Every structure is written in structure tokens, then in C-alpha cells.
């Protein structure tokens, strides 16, 4: 096993896929000459040339549309948004074009495109640069939504996303780019829609994805010392969703809490809570709880940012209350 950073794992996945399939290209702001705003595409311009690693002007709507149009005629674009905050000016192309091209054409136009880039909150970037948008995209049928938390998952899931014939929203965690983890040397993929138990436990199921996995693991370690055994389900992709993994775990622990980086109202955690009460109601000893970002835009002030984001303490507190 090699130890790679999250960004290196993503880079390796893209490079390997592009070496195999000449119809794949990477497009976005600063992906080429600058080597990527977050250096995810480091070295790729040299390897593949300007025809396949393509710098764009600042025009998210435009190049998202270029990606969609080119995917209609057989290319397999990887469109990088510098961060997902800027995807909002391209959301028309993502939702109105990419997500329903196959459906509204009666199955004539599959859409093998990956939209990827940095997402999530933190780093004192303020209200416009600290946002988790997976719930927005997961709302829309026709899209797949992938949110890896570890280098190993990032690699395997990105490869599956690139090979998928559907538009994939691949949200990388900005704060995890430098995080390290073991990545098998052998090539592998992780099917979209397959979650993973990241920690086994018996008292409560903690459901999470992406960066919030870190809060969950920290909380679980704290609680372990108090004799509370937490099971952690990392969904890894929200669409498709590994529902059975959730129910199997809840059947064992009889309690569930969702931890997510995004806002609470109409957040993805609300959907999970609904599904659990609908499909595993008989197994519940407590209402499903959620730990989310506070229902406010992100503040710049360090203390307010800290307060706004979910963290291990809040997760642990919530679980203690649920077990009382």
C-alpha cells in the first residue's frame, strides 16, 4: 500500500483513466498551466498536452455547457469547478441540460460527464466560499452525487464516476486535499452507491460522508472511552444511496444520527431521517437526530465559524443525549 494524499489519489485516478481512454479530457480554470487551483491536476498538462488538459476563461456556465455538448457526441469530459461555490452560475447547465438530456431525448443521449472540484466549508473563507452543496445536487434526479472522505475512496470513486455514462457531481472536500491515507497499489474501483462501515459499533449508528466523517470518528473515539460503541456508516455517494447499509446498521443499534457539513433545512440528512422512519421504524428507540452546520451563512470570524460548523463535541453531545 502506498500512502497518498487525497489530492494525489484524485490525480492518479484521472491520469490512469485518461491514459486508457483518449475521449476523456479535463477542463476548467487553472487546470493546466497553473497545475490546478488546488493542485489536483498537477503534472497533467505535461502528460496530456493542451488538447486534453484545457484551461478556460472564467465562464462556468459556458464551459459546463461545452462539457455537456461534447458529451452528447461521445467525449467524456471531466469539468473542474475551482470550487463548487462557482458551480452555481453553471447550475443551469448541470440541472437543465446534463441531468435530463438522456431522459428528455427518450434515451438517445447518455451523459458521461464528471463535474468535480473543491467543496465544503471552513478555512475562514467567509460566506461565499464556505458552502456544502451536495444536498442541492442530490435533489435532482438524473445526477449522481459522490462525496469521498478518504484518499482510498477518492481514487476508486473517481474512476467509477469517470467510467459512468451519467452526469456525476463529484464533490471533493477542500479541507481534505492534504489528508493522507493508504491507497492500494493495484488498480481498483468502488461502485457508486456502495457505502462502507468505517467503524463497527453496537449502540448507535452515525451516518455521514465526506469531511464530516472526521467529526464522526473523533466523536466515536471520545465516546468509546465512556463505554459507548458507535457504528459509522460512510455513505460515500448520496445518489445512488446505499439504503440497505443504513437499515442494517439501524436494526442492530436502534438509533441513528446524521452528521453533515451542509445546512439543515431540506438537507440530505432530512431525507435519510425520513427513509429510516419509513423503512426501519420498528427498530427505532429514539427519533433520528441530525448534526449539521448552523442555519446561517458562514461567518468569517474564527469563533463564529467554529460555532457554525458541526464538530466532534456536538456529535458526542447529541449521542449522549440520545442514549440517556
Amino acid at each position, binding site marked *: 500500500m502506498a500512502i497518498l494524499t487525497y489530492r494525489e489519489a484524485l490525480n492518479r485516478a484521472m491520469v490512469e483513466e485518461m491514459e486508457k481512454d483518449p475521449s476523456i479530457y479535463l477542463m476548467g480554470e487553472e487546470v493546466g498551466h497553473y497545475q490546478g487551483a488546488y493542485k489536483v491536476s498537477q503534472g497533467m498538462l505535461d502528460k496530456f498536452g493542451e488538447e486534453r488538459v484545457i484551461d478556460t476563461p472564467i465562464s462556468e456556465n459556458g464551459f459546463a455547457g461545452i462539457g455537456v*455538448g461534447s458529451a452528447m457526441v461521445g467525449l467524456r469530459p471531466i469539468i473542474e469547478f475551482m470550487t463548487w461555490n462557482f458551480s452555481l452560475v453553471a447550475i443551469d*447547465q448541470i440541472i*437543465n441540460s446534463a441531468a435530463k438530456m438522456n431522459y*428528455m431525448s427518450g434515451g438517445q443521449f447518455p451523459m458521461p460527464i464528471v463535474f468535480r472540484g473543491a467543496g465544503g466549508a471552513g478555512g475562514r473563507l467567509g460566506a461565499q466560499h464556505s458552502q456544502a452543496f451536495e444536498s442541492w445536487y442530490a435533489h435532482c434526479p*438524473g445526477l449522481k452525487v459522490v462525496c469521498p472522505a478518504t484518499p482510498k475512496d477518492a481514487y476508486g470513486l473517481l474512476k467509477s464516476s469517470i467510467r459512468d455514462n451519467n452526469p456525476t457531481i463529484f464533490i471533493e472536500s477542500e479541507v481534505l486535499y492534504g489528508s493522507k491515507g493508504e491507497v492500494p497499489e493495484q488498480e481498483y474501483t468502488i461502485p457508486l452507491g456502495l457505502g462502507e462501515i468505517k467503524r463497527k459499533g453496537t449502540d448507535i449508528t452515525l451516518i455521514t460522508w465526506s469531511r464530516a466523517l472526521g467529526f464522526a470518528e473523533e466523536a466515536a473515539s471520545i465516546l468509546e472511552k465512556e463505554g459507548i460503541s458507535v457504528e459509522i456508516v460512510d455513505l460515500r455517494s448520496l445518489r445512488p444511496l446505499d439504503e440497505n447499509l443504513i437499515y442494517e446498521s439501524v436494526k442492530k443499534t436502534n438509533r441513528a444520527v446524521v452528521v453533515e457539513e451542509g445546512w439543515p433545512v431540506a438537507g440530505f440528512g432530512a431525507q435519510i431521517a425520513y427513509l429510516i422512519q419509513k423503512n426501519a421504524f420498528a427498530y427505532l428507540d429514539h427519533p433520528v437526530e441530525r448534526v449539521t452546520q448552523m442555519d446561517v451563512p458562514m461567518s468569517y470570524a474564527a469563533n463564529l465559524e467554529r460555532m457554525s460548523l458541526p464538530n466532534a463535541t456536538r456529535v458526542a453531545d447529541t449521542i449522549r443525549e440520545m442514549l440517556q
Partner: protein
Amino acid sequence: MVSSIPKDSQSVSELKEFYRQMVLIRKFEEAAAKAYSVGKIGGFLHLYIGQEAVGVGSIAALTPKDYIVSTYRDHGHALARGLNPKPLMAELFGKGTGISKGNGGSMHFFDRNAHFMGGHGIVGGHISLAAGIAFASKFKKEDSVTICFFGEGAANIGSFHEGLNLAAIWKLPVVFICENNHYAMGTPEYRALAVKDVSVRAYAYDMARDHIEGDEVRKVRDHVQVAVERARRGEGPTLIEVSTYRFRGHSMSDPAKYRTKEELEAYKKKDPLMRARHELELGGIKTEELDKMDLEIQTQIEEAYEYAETSPEPPLSQLHKHVYAEDK
């Protein structure tokens, strides 16, 4: 009316074919309007009546390997591409035999084989899709050209500017055709365009431009041809503004009270169908022959109507189909 008389038998037969296509579009849409008014067609129905010479002339400049991207006003473009009126009418009727299996409707005709890359419903959003298709042609080193139709209303949205700029910096093989019918729904161009001539916006992107009247079908073809050839030579995109007029409202639900009768009548005198007919007669085609052609087309449309009406609705099992593409 200054008429250009077709000079030889080849240009007569060419004009005859253009006339046939324009009549086909006109009659198709008249039938659609009728079906709409008795509730057989739902949703929005944006008719192309009056603009036929633009679609027919432009698409005549293409070869089968070229691509067409359209708006919600897509019937004329699809028919000009040679698509069979039967599955088109069936699509309007929401039938499983429709060109998009009934999932698309009036605004979303798609035909992959014909390189008819869809009618699209978000004003201007499809402009960058067209650039993307052209991008793919260049990427794959194929010499296909993409043409993209849109209205002057679309020229005011961000995606127009982004799409044109990207196409220009990368010299993509695409021709942007602005069908300026002078109204975006109820908004006349003078209330929406700071500079009235859309084609001069090409200067902002160092792009070739052209501006023509859209009532003379062969002239449209000739001008679009120049742009298509430029694109095919790798010399980049062109923005062409074609001045035209829609005789109907924006859609079937629009009585178009924002314009005067006089204005409409003046434009109707420039009806591209009448013009082509007149030119054919000057070129030696007998009125009876043209009448016979009209009648044949009428029969063809009636057959399409009948086909649409008697086709089954899509199976309910289709509801969940095609949300995602089947696995490879």
C-alpha cells in the same frame, strides 16, 4: 418585391425542394395548431410560421455529418433536417412513437442519427452546448460543423456571451444563427437590445459576422454556406443575424397584442413561401404543379396526424426509464 429568378433548371429544382420543405413546415404547424386548440397537444407550442426560410436555407448549407442545435421553436428546424413528420407529430401528441419517445414534447425534439441535437428550453443555455459539440468535432479532428439557432432575446443572456467567447478563442467550427423575429415573447427588440444589430456583437469576440434578410431562402443558404465553409476550414465561428418575423404569437397562448395589425400585414407581404412560389413561377413552374405539390404535402401531414392520433401513449413503465443511462 425584388425577385431573384432561378436561372437554370438546377436552381429551379433546388428552389422547388426548398419550397416543398417550407410548405411542409407551414402545414405541419397549422395542423399542430389545430390539434393544440382541441387539446390533443399540451404544454407550450411555439410555432415557426413566417420564419421557414431561415431554417430551410440554413440547414440546406449542411451535410449529414453536421450538427444542429435548436430552441423550443424547433419544429421547422427538425423538418428542414429531413426528419419524418410522423414521429415529430407523435411527439407533440405525447405518444410513445414520438421522436423523443414522448418524454420531450414540442420543445425537445431529438434525433441522434440525424445529428439533430435537440430543442432546448432555457433561453440561451443551448448556445454553449453547440460550442461543446463543435469542441468535440475539433477534438476528434472531424470536419463536422455545428449550427445553433436562437432568438435575439437569447443574445442578452450570459450564456450567449460565454458561448461565443469560448467558441472564438478556440476557433470552434460553429455558426451562430440569430433568428431575429424582433420580439422576445412580448418584449420588442428596442426595449431589450442596447445595440439593435445583434450581429455587431461579433466584433466583441473578433468573430466573423453577417446580417441578412430572412425571406429569401436561397440567399439564406448562400450566406450560411460561407460561414459553414469558414468553420470547416478551421477559421472559426460566425455570428449571423437573420431578420425574420413570426406571424403567430410567441406561443399558442399568446394573442400577440403588443404589435399592430399593420406591422403584421407588412411582414406577411414578405412571406417567404409566397416569395419562393412567385420565383418558381417566374422560373417557369406552373401554378398547377405547385398546387399539386401543396396537396401532396397536405396528405402527408394528414397521415402524420393520423399516425400521431392512433399511436399508443408510452407505457407507464417508461416513467422511470432513461433517468439514468443503461450501464455500458
